[in-house]
């Protein structure tokens, strides 16, 4: 299963996809807020979203899995 990990520590600002949605490479899947900046998290692979592991307001650390793909 492919995973999308957080590249840095921060708080989930928006979740831009739904479970079951097809995403393309480079699509913004989530936006984190960190260091007072909005950090778009882009899909590195194309695929169908299986699970969304973090919700708006959650703290995520670097390396945490944000989204998994089927």
């Amino acid at each position, binding site marked *: 299963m492919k995973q999308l990990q957080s*590249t*840095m*520590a921060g708080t989930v600002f928006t979740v831009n996809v739904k479970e079951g949605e097809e995403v393309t490479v480079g699509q913004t899947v989530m936006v984190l807020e*960190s*260091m*007072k*900046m*909005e*950090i*778009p998290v882009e899909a590195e692979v194309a695929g169908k979203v299986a699970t969304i592991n973090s919700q708006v307001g959650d703290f995520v*650390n*670097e*390396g945490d899995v944000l989204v998994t793909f089927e």
Partner: protein
Amino acid sequence: MYAKGATRVTENTTYNEQLEEKLEKIFAGGQPKYHEKMKEQNKLFVRDRLALLFDEGSYLEDGRFANCEANDLPADGVVTAMGKVNGQTVCVMANDSTVKAGSWGSRTVEKIIRIQEIAEKNRVPMLYLVDSAGARITDQLDMFPNRRGAGKIFHNQVRLSGFIPQICLLFGPSAAGGAYIPAFCDIVIMVEGNASMYLGSPRMAEKVIGEKVSLEEMGGARMHCSISGCGDVLVTSEEDAISEARRYLAYFPANFTEKPKVIETIASKEGRSLEAIIPENQNAPFDMYEAIDQLIDEGSFFDVKKLFAPEIITGLARIEGQPVGIIANQPKAKGGVLFVDSADKATKFINLCDAFSIPLLFLADVPGFMIGTKVERAGIIRHGAKLIMAMSSATVPKISVIVRKAYGAGLYAMAGPAFEPDVCIALPTAQIAVMGPEAAVNAVYSNKIEAIEDPKERIKFVQEKHHEYKEEINIYKLASEMIIDEIVKPSDLRSVLADRYRAYSTKDIPQPPRKHPVYPV
């Protein structure tokens, strides 16, 4: 200008025939089956690589007959040559992987050492075209531990570092000790799918530590160019690797005593203006590459470590024909925050440019260095110190442009006013502060904010304080205090930079009398 394998014709044909026969064997390289294998891997024969690299494909070769008595080791598996690239003489060592997988015997090593010595004496760049399985174990006593053994190659690389440009083109494996050749070069260009670097092969890793892993995961080109940072430029073919190396060399002088060439101006790329590219909201991301395009001559950007630590951009470019090394925060990646890897990337790039008199341009839009346990445990303080030391010690013309925000030590890392940039320019959108307004108001008034019970009053108070803070860090106030030297309209920035670099072209700062600083990392 150089003749390819010229032989003198005399009446004595027997001698000549013997020589020609020997040469034919040498030029043929290893056995046909190994040539076939190379073709399958989309690899070029070493002499075809050299023909592509050098102007008109011609070169002067030394040690051609090395180990010719052995019969099956043409040139002892390495071609060492001198030739021209863009009209500039360079020295080259190029492994021949059709000969015992490009492994190093005693003569292989001696040839490499000699071509390095030639590069040093003639003060010309040294290129390493690597495709080698590593040491020839059967020859180890003659090539590994001795005074002119493989260690000497690395010792020479260190001596030559910053004296002449050293470039590595990685076409195949660079294993174990051999992996230090790319490590000591200024830049490493890797061919995806074929190039690899590792100290221990996957087979060895499985035997010694029990790890099961593929060669790609262990030391593939993409891994090194995006994760380890050992590779700088990822290409898809050997032809691309060679043309990138030729393009890279055009930014450099032959050695540290010379200055890089200034060429004719090319207009910048047509596109949106900087005013349109840079959002007013300090927290919103934008693509710094698009901004760079508006400042540089079209098509002149040479991206170094594009895939590694993308939150900072490092690349060579030209502004009105003058070469510059650009260090720019990328708000689109990780908010442009500085991490351990970003500090690493920028440090090496600054050292590279400073060594060869390439002026520096810092484009700052940086919220600061990353905080949190992950980065503290990774030593972000000493890595940040390393970056600040490199930037601070650089004596080439150094211009700092505050594009948007420069907060905290981010201002220091991006050649802020205290680090003697030749000029610190702000765009009207610039904000310089210890931290951003939200963080600052929180830090100073958090108790007071919490004590206000009426939510409306609380918001009003916070907004007032934001406003006060923004006034305090107003860019005209900083200019009035002469903290920044100049405020420039974004649309004028390109020509201002070009004029400034021309003005600073005679800059010369003597080095302080000491041996060397004590590097923080």
